[in-house]
């Protein structure tokens, strides 16, 4: 259960951080505001998931201790959320692919037999539904905008495609969580994800990349090089001043 909660909380922590890196640097003021909103939602969700993870672990660690005092190999997020922002097209495509998975994942977890898990999922799914609506809308508009916006979105979906498969790969922990009635298998979501993805890509005149090769490892602690750099920045103060209270 602890590991499952880390998987949920680390996804929102890492993506929330990535989105916050845009603050003040986005293409237009309205996007600065929207990105801050999304980042705030994700950080709020992190506090819920990691807060419960700390309780379940029972070692006296709270959400901050888990966020700021673990090294990369203890992180359990999907690789896609730690991919760097690159251009705004990559950022939006990463958000869209994550939102599409996240929304379905949370909807599934709303069937959890664990009241604490269900409570968090029920709160988060509302926010995820808004995030998905926004990112879907932008993908459609940019795919159907100028030749350049179309080309950037196509490039982005191709670059991120190898990170999609990991979202739906079941491992021993997933099977255990499914049996315990805590969360259904991630693979259950794939047909729904594919259907919704195909509809949006088609509305956006974007081509679904060929191939099913999937980069994996994030959910068991084997990350890309990017996560270490992100944590070096994010964890600097609590690491440099371990006795301080902020």
């Amino acid at each position, binding site marked *: 259960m602890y590991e499952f909660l880390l998987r949920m909380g680390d996804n929102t922590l890492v993506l929330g951080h990535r989105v916050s890196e845009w*603050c003040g*640097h986005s*293409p237009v003021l309205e996007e600065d*505001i929207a990105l*801050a909103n999304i980042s705030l939602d994700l*950080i709020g969700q*992190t506090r819920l998931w990691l807060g419960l993870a700390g309780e379940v672990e029972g070692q006296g660690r709270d959400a901050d201790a888990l966020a700021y005092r673990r090294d990369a190999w203890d992180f359990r997020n999907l690789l896609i959320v730690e991919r760097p922002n690159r251009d705004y097209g990559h950022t939006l495509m990463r958000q869209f692919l994550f939102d599409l998975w996240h929304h379905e994942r949370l909807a599934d977890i709303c069937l959890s037999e664990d009241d604490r898990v269900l409570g968090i999922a029920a709160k988060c799914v509302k926010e995820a539904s808004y995030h998905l609506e926004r990112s879907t809308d932008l993908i459609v508009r940019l795919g159907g905008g*100028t030749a350049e*916006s179309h080309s950037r979105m196509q490039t982005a979906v191709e670059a991120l495609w190898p990170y999609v498969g990991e979202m739906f790969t079941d491992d021993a922990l997933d099977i255990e969580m499914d049996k315990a009635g805590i969360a259904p298998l991630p693979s259950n979501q794939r047909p729904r994800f594919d259907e919704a993805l195909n509809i949006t890509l088609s509305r956006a005149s974007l081509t679904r990349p060929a191939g099913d090769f999937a980069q994996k490892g994030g959910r068991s602690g084997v990350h890309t090089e990017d996560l270490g750099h992100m944590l070096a920045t994010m964890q600097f103060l609590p690491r440099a001043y371990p006795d*301080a209270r902020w």
Partner: protein
Amino acid sequence: MYAQTVQSTGRKVKSLEEMSDQERAFQARIDAGEKIEPKDWMPDGYRKTLVRQISQHAHSEVVGQLPEGNWITRAPTLERKAILLAKVQDEAGHGLYLYSAAETLGVSRADLIDDLLAGRAKYSSIFNYPTLNWADMGAVGWLVDGAAIINQVALQRTSYGPYSRAMVRICKEESFHARQGFDIMMKMVAGTAAQKAMAQDALNRLWWPALMMFGPPDKDSVHSAQSMAWKIKVMTNDEGRQKFVDQTIPQIEYLGLDVPDKAARKNPKTGHYSFVDPDWDEFFAVLKGYGPCNADRMLARNKAHDDGAWFREGLLAYAEKQTIAAE
């Protein structure tokens, strides 16, 4: 203040006798405390001065995202990160209200932003100073937003309706910002020796630039008289600065920090503090572009704008296609 050196007409204030009938009627409305609305007649100078002031104010909110954005990725707890994000998000929102208020005067946000990016428009000098340690996030909220509130509370009474109403909304959020800044400072001074040193360092660096926010001394403020007559400006630079010093020095003492101005003393008769002026040569140099961060701030804004051009163009092209399809 976020609009420190707004050029007005450059001429002396006209007497009632020198005014045309229309100007006299306008001045009478101002003197009676009426709000001027976008469709009302107004002197050209009034319109131009307001556009300069409101756009400087808007640009300051937008550029002001950068010094605090500098610490969002390094905020030390999830709660602090969320609070800082929400605060910077508010600043972007203030930028939007203010650009909208400026647009009621017949200018476009796109043109105003072009002026900023080309270096033709000004923004508050305070944002050309760096944020070097985490306590700066406290000091910016406490001192910078604290100074801004003094002016903005006064500006709720400004004569132009849309600007005045924008200020009412903005002030509610700014007072929250100042409180969260002071809360960070309280934590820092109650913390380890290193945290207290960060708090003192932030205060020492930001004290003088915060005093500069109110603009040059009244005796050197060449454009104030007309703005005051039109009630675009409702408090002088020196009045605002004195108010700031009077409210802030007791707060510094409460925090147990040293007042950067060693000569500051309270006059028991007037209740006001005496204080040393900031270095006005430095102030004018920062306005001319020679502050520690002017070049970096403009580079960041220009990069965001240029890198985002394809995004804005893509959305516009899509909207146009939808309109054509609907016709």
